[in-house]
């Protein structure tokens, strides 16, 4: 039975309620305001480098600040690419490939009116890379230092040029600069050299200024009318970020008109959201929900047949249905639209007959199953519907002769296990983990998992995978300064990863957003970085 508002009002004699009792209409009269229900329990750090992962950059990163090297965020129909940000160009010295020269954009000012120049860049690098610097900020450093693993040194060449030096030759280094945002040294001085005060009154060069911050509740961003990049001039006057970590609460807030758009709706409320006239927007997103299989001595997954069988036993279309259609079947670490996908010969698909044959060839069967144990997350950011998905897959595997027992833990615990690697004593008896993660660039998608120098605990090659050919492709890519060649080599790495079925590939998140009827022109990039200036 549908409960109509008018019927209820009439029945209860409340048609004549004073208008003050009803909620205000969604849109403001004088200025164009959009209220955005975000999935985070707190507003990400506003002092320069956001915390709370890649998804936080769209809120307090690329709104208030700019990176030196930016990501193309205004295209939805293809993967973006590196584009000039506060640096207009970047080039490795042909004589010493470890030295990168960055030409800086002229005429850019911070929100406080001070000039952006090479001194500001060096000051910001010292802020996060040099613990001895007087303005070093531990909080920001903890976020961005891990994102800049190749950076060794930095110096100013002139007011408009800086030189960055990498530890080894690394042609993929510009991807690391995407994460490095520039805040105002003058504002820091003005606020008594306090990062706490700076977080409340930040100053960057970005398209929005922070007008108001209520920690754990909301942040109000207003249009920076003096923004240097006309292509990213905000189309609304004010964006209000409202913390609503619970998906049902967030969805209800949209349905009741309390916010204008939300990220990640409650899956079972999607039909209701759509029928209320809201639009669901999603896109290919660099993320993969998967299982990393241990390659250590004694692990059953050293047998290629079992790894392939584990992949073939899963009906990914059913998984996507379970996720309300808001996901994409994964046939690799990255989506086929990615330049690093290549052309793997092993086709990840649903073929239970072949899966059973492979399991039998490896000496197991449904009557005599392979028994093993995985560590999985009970839920959390990026893990989608973790338990239902795991249980569905567990059943699928059982039908082909793979009996997996799960050790469910909180995501934070799983992260610790991830960093420790499969050989850690706490992983005894565990042969796979299922951390889902960002795959936005070659380092994040492939290098950190499959290069032998990244074996945990140095990196997050949890599996202890080591393969000279894979290492060779990665090393060549890092030595190549031709973007097309880099892509080709990374595609070879990816082909090798898929052909060897190193992971069990399950699904890609599509980062669904639900837009109210009053929201127009939102462009959802194929990335976790999104551009709120496209909202209208």
């Amino acid at each position, binding site marked *: 039975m549908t*409960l109509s*508002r008018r019927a*209820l*009002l009439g029945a209860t004699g409340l048609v004549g*309620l004073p208008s*003050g*009792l*009803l*909620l*205000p209409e969604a849109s403001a009269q004088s200025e164009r305001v959009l209220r955005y229900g975000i999935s985070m*329990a*707190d507003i990400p*750090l506003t002092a320069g480098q956001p*915390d709370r*992962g890649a998804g936080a950059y769209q809120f307090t990163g690329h709104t208030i600040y700019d990176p030196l090297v930016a990501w193309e965020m205004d295209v939805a129909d293809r993967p973006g690419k590196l584009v000039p940000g506060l640096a207009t160009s970047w080039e490795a010295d042909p004589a010493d490939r470890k030295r990168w020269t960055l030409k800086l954009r002229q005429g850019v000012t911070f929100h406080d009116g001070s000039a952006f120049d090479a001194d500001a860049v060096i000051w910001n690098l010292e802020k996060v890379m040099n*613990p001895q610097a007087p303005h070093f900020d*531990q*909080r920001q450093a*903890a*976020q961005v*230092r*891990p*994102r800049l*693993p190749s950076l060794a040194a930095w110096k100013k060449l002139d007011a408009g040029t800086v030189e960055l030096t990498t530890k080894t030759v690394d042609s993929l280094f510009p991807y690391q600069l995407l994460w490095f945002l520039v805040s105002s040294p003058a504002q820091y001085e003005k606020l008594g050299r306090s*990062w*706490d005060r700076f977080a409340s009154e930040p100053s960057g060069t970005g398209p929005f200024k922070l007008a108001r911050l*209520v*920690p*754990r*509740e*909301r942040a109000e961003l207003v249009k920076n009318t003096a923004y240097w990049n006309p292509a990213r001039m905000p189309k609304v006057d004010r964006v209000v970020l*409202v*913390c*609503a*970590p*619970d998906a*049902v*609460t967030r969805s*209800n*807030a949209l*349905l*009741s*008109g*309390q916010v204008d758009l939300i990220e990640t709706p409650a899956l079972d409320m999607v039909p209701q959201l759509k029928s209320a006239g809201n639009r669901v927007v999603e896109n290919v997103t660099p993320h993969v929900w998967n299982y990393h299989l241990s390659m250590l001595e004694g692990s059953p997954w050293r047998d290629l047949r079992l790894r392939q069988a584990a992949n073939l036993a899963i009906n990914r279309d059913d998984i996507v249905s379970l996720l309300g259609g808001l996901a994409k079947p994964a046939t690799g670490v990255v989506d086929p639209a990615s330049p690093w996908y290549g052309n793997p010969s092993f086709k990840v698909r649903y073929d239970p007959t072949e899966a059973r044959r492979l399991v039998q060839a490896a000496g197991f069967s449904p009557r005599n199953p392979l028994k093993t144990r995985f560590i999985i997350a009970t839920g*959390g950011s990026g893990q989608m519907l973790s338990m239902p998905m795991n249980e569905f897959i567990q059943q699928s595997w059982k039908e082909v002769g793979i009996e997996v027992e799960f050790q469910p*833990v*909180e995501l*934070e*615990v799983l*992260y*610790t296990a*991830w*960093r420790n690697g499969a050989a850690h004593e706490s992983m005894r008896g565990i042969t796979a983990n299922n*951390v889902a*993660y960002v795959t936005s660039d070659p380092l*994040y998608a492939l290098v950190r998992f499959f290069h032998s120098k990244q074996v945990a*605990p*140095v*990196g*997050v090659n949890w599996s202890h995978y080591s393969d000279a050919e894979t290492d060779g492709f990665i090393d060549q890519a890092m030595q190549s300064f031709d973007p097309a060649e880099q892509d080709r080599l990374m595609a070879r790495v990816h082909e090798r990863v898929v052909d060897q079925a190193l992971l069990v590939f399950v699904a890609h998140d599509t980062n669904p957003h639900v837009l109210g009827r009053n929201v127009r022109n939102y462009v959802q990039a194929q990335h976790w970085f999104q551009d709120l200036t496209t909202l209208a």
Partner: protein
Amino acid sequence: MLLYLIRRVLYAVPIALAVGLVCFMLVQIAPGDPINAIVPADAPQEVVEQVRRDYGLDKPLPVQFGLWLGRVVQGDLGRSLATGRPVTADLVPAVANTLTLALVAAGIGFVLGTLLGTVAAVFRGSLLDKAAVGLAAAGVSVPHYWLGMVMVVLFSVTLNWLPAMGAGPGGSGAWAWDWAHAQFLVLPAVTLSVIPMGIVTRTVRGVVMELLNQDFVTTLRGKGLRRGGIALHVVKNAAPSVLAVMGLQLGYLMGGSILVETVFSWPGTGFLLNSAIFQRDLPVLQGTILVLAIFFVALNLVVDLVQTALDPRIRRA
């Protein structure tokens, strides 16, 4: 009385210490690493270890606890591992928000519970009694987060009368006692009030019924006192027991509203604890639980004192 008061305040010290220690140990025993609240999940080991040293998380546990305790006695609850903000900066507004919610919920629950309980006792066995007992049972039994969701669907989504979440149109920082803000309080407060309403109803009903059967009530009737006069005597006699239950309920409301605050995104201590638990944000957890424990102890003390004032038979030597 003064000695009693001093003794009770002194009792609170070891309780607070024990709460702090237990909370500290529980977080240490729980699997996971507080460092995850600070660095990205895939941070290289060298960065993780560096950050661990920077935050003093590499020190032996007794040293960490001692350092925390040393700061606490100076009124410093430390800084959140996750946000870097001082714990008190988050805790003070959170306590204020939870207190607002708890007091309003308690007001609704206690008034309704007292009314229903009294009516049920006076009209024992009647339809009114059965209805009151039924309501009380429902109040205690219905999961309040479920009730909260149902109320949001009805009053926010369907009727659009009340906001679905938040603490005011501009957040709790700009709270004012007008309808524009108070409407944000209605649904979470009503949701939270159903359990104390149920418990108080049952308590009042039981106590009043017992009192109504006592000899002094018969004597009062025999003296020709009307129902109103008798009720005054009964209420006065029932107050100490009912107050004790109400004090406990208020304490529970302060500490036990995690689910309701999450459902309504109400930025109180429950909401704060929820994210601190998932992030292993030890300073926030310890600080919040310590403050809530002290509040609980203080509340019990106040209830004891009020009981004494109401009933001279209760002696506090």
